[in-house]
């Protein structure tokens, strides 16, 4: 039962996360990687910047993993979130759920990213041509989910 949780300020080490969940009991490994993409809501995005409230962010991620491992038979789990500037094509988040069976691994991975986007104090700023904005803060604006 391995668990790796990290908030890092440089490029995510995918191998570290994958190695952390490796176990001969696991038959299914599902990963989610969120990358900075070059478009959002029809605008050209130049880069993203993430800020986290530590240690609350890590504590909330641990709560998510507690819940995941209570609800599904997910033996090993890793989540790494990058903060600071994240250029186009680079990853801001990497989640790995490893279980005996794929249904559990898919459900856990999906639940983790969905819940992170609701409860973990991390903020994303979009830099686009002609401006910048903290996603979700503009009064009245409803932003689509970035990933």
């Amino acid at each position: 039962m391995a668990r790796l949780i990290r908030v890092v300020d440089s490029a995510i080490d995918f191998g570290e996360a994958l190695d952390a969940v490796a176990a001969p009991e696991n038959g299914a490994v599902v990963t989610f990687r969120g990358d900075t993409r070059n478009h959002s809501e029809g605008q050209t995005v130049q880069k993203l910047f993430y800020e986290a409230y530590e240690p609350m962010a890590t504590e909330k991620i641990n709560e998510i993993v507690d819940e995941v491992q209570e609800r599904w038979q997910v033996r090993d789990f890793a989540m790494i979130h990058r903060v600071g500037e994240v250029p186009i094509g680079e990853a801001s988040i990497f989640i790995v759920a490893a279980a005996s069976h794929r249904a559990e691994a898919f459900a856990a991975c999906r639940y983790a990213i969905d819940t992170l986007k609701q409860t973990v104090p991390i903020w994303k700023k979009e830099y686009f041509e002609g401006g910048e904005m903290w996603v979700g803060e503009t009064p009245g604006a409803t932003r689509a989910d970035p990933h």
Partner: protein
Amino acid sequence: MHIESKKVAPTTIEVSVKLFAGAAELIGQRELTVTLTPDATVDAAFTALAADHPGIAAMRSILRFAINHDFAEPDRVLHDGDELALIPPVSGG
């Protein structure tokens, strides 16, 4: 520590306020201290903050709060030494 504070009947408490994202940019600080009456709520702390930094008032409707790293409702009572965080809409991932 809270019990001790009550014993000496302090007339004020100090709460550390953490600011993030647009709220930090708006106020121009990431951390500050507010002095409140004992048993002040989160709401009262926000009102005190907005008195010094009026720009933040407009964000009230989109903010959540956390006390010592746990989400807290606006009617929660603060204690001396608490860390109060203003949590704009989160957008991690």
